[in-house]
């Protein structure tokens, strides 16, 4: 492509290699990347963790990790050869042509500066419309309104920590738009946000793109998000673009086995079962020009156990974090059962009290009221020190973040051996425990740093299962994993539940994962149960308005129906109300009675119940749509 052609392109990357030196060896982070994007197009960069997505996104702003360098190739963005830019030229380029919306706006906004100042900084110095202080203020308000931040004028004088995660992300987007850039780069703009917030932010982004028409590059590991947002997609694997083209073509007719594998491994809320995981051997063979038969490619459907005894019974659990006597308790009146061999999912947005409940069961958090019973007979003492050894052994917890819950200086053997020694378990070994989670015995010698994310999570599971528990608390254990690794961990959970009759309390905010693995589901909102039922019932046609909001917000691959929440519906209040229905402030069906009277438990079937004042008929999917006008 000639220089004149690249002037017409928003982005033109040719034969790009990015590398860093490991000793004297050059390691390529990106290899032979070619990409072109015309003005107004939206390019999705998709791939697994470590595939080079963020590196590629950074390059568009002439930003590299300190030890990395361009080994080969050229990068033109908005007509400029970005790595030839220096000093003032580079600053001007960043200040006017291209802007970044960082992954975690909470950390990316300067904590000691007011929003107004941070926005004002991003205005172009040559922009006459922002010459005076008053003009800058009104333009800042205009920007915050554009991204639908509630009460923009008041927001200007606040500091970042005074906003919720979703609001911070909106401010991050407003800041990126401030310079009217020709190209907007978004690195995982909604990862880590709740589904409803994600839907609202993506909707805002689509609208902004339609109005302002800039080119966008969106980095995401979520194929559903890419499908919804992008005109074009580039699939990255190990630093190479393995496939690229118009999104609809690539997703409908993927030519590379990696793309096919990625697509197949995404769990869906509209279809039950655990999807197959990627088979790296097949893909590597394809890259070498050979063909191997694909291994397992079928979706695996789990069957719920029938008539097994309860391992955990929770009745009337109430937790109150309030220091003062007034104020509604954080968790109120929660009843919960987990049976042997059963996987029960606890779902809800952030702040709904999921982890608090897990901590109470684990004995790490005191309660205000409630009775917890183990195996139908032993009443659980409130705190760990007061629990008998046998009880502590029976309840094991696996944490969200395998990276931080394993001691980096301790070998896998030490980590897994600890419960074996602690509980004096005979007739088992570290090797057997590792075999239980499909890891070879040789892994015992390794340190956590020498394991991948999925392997680390397996070690975490091995450690919990080695104790021989009857109940495992799994707090967001697959949230940080790539989808294909996710399905292999889900399969592992299923097998352990069946083979060892383990009861799992599985905590997550990801509804597609719930659909794939759970037998029963408990939906929590602001520490109150709003609905519970079997997995098919929860994803069926009668739902609590909150569950409906969550389901509608999920962005599914190949599904154009995902609806954005109405303005304001993505904002979770700071705490539960003292009376009435917790969901009243966001509910499209809200009635007067909802604000004062606690909703009754309405049975839909023997296993399905909903806590809501609205007649069940209004909660049916078909009717609810016309009643709320949400779609």
């Amino acid at each position: 492509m000639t220089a004149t052609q690249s002037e017409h392109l928003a982005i033109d990357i040719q034969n790009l290699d990015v590398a860093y030196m490991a000793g004297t060896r050059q390691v390529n982070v990106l290899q032979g990347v070619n990409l072109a994007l015309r003005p107004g197009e939206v390019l999705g960069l998709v791939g697994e963790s470590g595939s080079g997505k963020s590196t590629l996104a950074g390059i568009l702003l002439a930003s590299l990790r300190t030890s990395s360098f361009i080994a080969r190739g050229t990068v033109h963005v908005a007509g400029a050869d970005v790595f030839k830019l220096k000093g003032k030229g580079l600053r001007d380029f960043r200040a006017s042509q291209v802007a970044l919306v960082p992954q975690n706006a909470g950390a990316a906004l300067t904590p000691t500066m007011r929003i107004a100042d941070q926005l004002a900084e991003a205005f172009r110095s040559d922009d006459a419309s922002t010459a005076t202080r008053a003009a800058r203020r009104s333009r800042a308000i205009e920007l915050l309104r554009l991204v639908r931040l509630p009460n923009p004028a008041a927001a200007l004088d606040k500091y970042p920590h005074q906003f919720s995660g979703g609001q911070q992300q909106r401010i991050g987007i407003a800041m990126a738009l401030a310079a009217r850039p020709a190209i907007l780069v978004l690195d995982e703009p909604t990862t880590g946000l709740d589904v409803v917030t994600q839907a609202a932010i993506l909707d805002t982004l689509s609208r902004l793109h339609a109005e302002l028409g800039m080119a966008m590059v969106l980095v995401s590991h979520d194929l559903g998000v890419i499908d919804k947002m992008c005109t074009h997609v580039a699939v990255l694997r190990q630093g190479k673009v393995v496939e690229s083209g118009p999104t609809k073509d690539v997703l409908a007719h993927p030519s590379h086995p990696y793309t096919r594998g990625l697509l197949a491994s995404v769990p869906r809320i509209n279809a039950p079962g655990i999807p197959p995981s990627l088979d790296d051997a097949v893909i590597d063979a394809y890259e070498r020009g050979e063909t191997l038969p694909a291994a397992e490619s079928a979706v695996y459907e789990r069957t719920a156990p029938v008539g097994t005894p309860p391992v955990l019974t929770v009745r009337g659990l109430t937790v109150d974090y309030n220091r003062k006597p007034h104020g509604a308790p954080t968790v109120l009146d929660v009843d919960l059962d987990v049976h042997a061999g059963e996987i029960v999912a606890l779902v809800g947005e952030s702040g709904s009290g999921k982890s608090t409940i897990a901590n109470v069961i684990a004995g790490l958090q005191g309660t205000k009221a409630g009775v917890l019973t183990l195996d139908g007979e032993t009443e659980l003492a409130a705190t760990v020190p007061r629990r008998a050894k046998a009880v502590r052994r029976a309840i094991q917890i696996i944490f969200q973040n395998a990276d931080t819950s394993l001691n980096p200086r301790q070998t896998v053997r030490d980590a897994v051996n600890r419960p074996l020694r602690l509980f004096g378990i005979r007739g088992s070994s570290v090797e057997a425990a590792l075999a239980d989670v499909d890891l070879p015995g040789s892994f015992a010698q390794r340190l956590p740093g020498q394991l991948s994310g999925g392997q680390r999570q397996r070690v975490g599971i091995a450690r919990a299962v080695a104790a021989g528990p009857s109940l495992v608390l799994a707090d967001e254990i697959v949230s940080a994993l790539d989808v294909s690794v996710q399905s292999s961990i889900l399969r592992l959970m299923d097998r352990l539940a069946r083979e060892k009759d383990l009861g799992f309390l599985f905590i997550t905010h990801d509804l597609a994962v719930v659909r794939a693995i759970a037998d029963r589901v408990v939906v929590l909102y602001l520490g109150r149960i709003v609905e519970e039922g079997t997995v098919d019932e929860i994803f069926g046609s009668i739902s609590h308005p909150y569950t409906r909001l969550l389901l509608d917000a999920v962005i599914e691959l190949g599904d154009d129906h995902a609806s954005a929440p109405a303005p304001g519906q993505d904002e979770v209040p700071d705490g539960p109300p003292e009376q009435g229905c917790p969901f009243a402030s966001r509910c499209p069906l809200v009635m007067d009675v909802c604000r004062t009277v606690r909703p009754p438990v309405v049975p839909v079937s023997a296993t399905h119940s909903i806590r809501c004042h609205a007649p069940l008929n209004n909660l049916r999917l078909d009717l609810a749509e016309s009643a709320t006008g949400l779609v």
Partner: protein
Amino acid sequence: MFTRFVAPRLGWAIATIVLSTVLVFSAMQALPGDAATQILGQNATPEAVATLRRQLGLDQAPVARFVTWLGHALTGNFGTSLVSGQAVGPEVGRALLNTSFLAGVTILVGFSLAMVLGLVAGLFRDRWPDALISTVALVGMSVPEFIVATLLVLAFSITIPLFPAVVVAGQNATIGQLLPSMPLPALSLMFVAAAYIIRMMRTSVIDVMESDFVHTARLKGITTGRLVIRHVVPSAVLPTLNVVAMNIAWLIGGVVVVESIFNYPGMGSLMIRSVQSRDLPTILLITVIGAVTFVACNLLADLAATFLNPRLRYPRNSK
């Protein structure tokens, strides 16, 4: 505000002050001899010592004496010097003024310089300005102040006779008379105290430079000056403040050594003289002043941290 912020700290402050006087009082009891034996010298008859003791009130039980002193002190009466017979206030006051001046110069010049040096070291991490500043700081931390003082005297008053080696103006010198001999004591104090501040500031600047928000701000295309002043410094100063407060408190101790080396007529010299003469009222007043300074510095650091940190100034739920 009061119950959450001020009240607990106030209680802690009063406890610190009272406790330190108790400690110093007990320590003085443990030393051999008292004011009477020190005043009368070795050849005094036991009768003369006993008489003087009675006159000075030293014949009463230590606990009773401390309680009496505490009662008077609470009304602002710190007693008379056992040596001069004058009220302790004016003499200690004069010394306090001199010391405050020395400490003030050290804090203003030295600490701000230290913050700037720490900032520079952090910004030029692992390049020559950092290497230079960090080495100096390391030396400052590992060498005791009396050696620093001695070396400074060797360099700037003996080898190159720029400043006087000791203060000759005497006990009743005015600030104006003290001024020419100020640089060396001030430099000795600065050198040692600044080292910790430089190290802390450097570490915290490096942390902040690697944060997401600095990366984002840089990608906005703002100038480096603006980046440093608006985005880096406010966050980097916060963790350094406590070290600064600790160092101010530490200055109280360092001052004693440095003042006596340079014969500077401040609280440190007065303290040493009073300990030699067992002049308890003077010592106790100096203790009170030292403790109050210590407490006040910590309180100020907390207040400054609150003022600089929006998270503390505007809790999440405030409207």
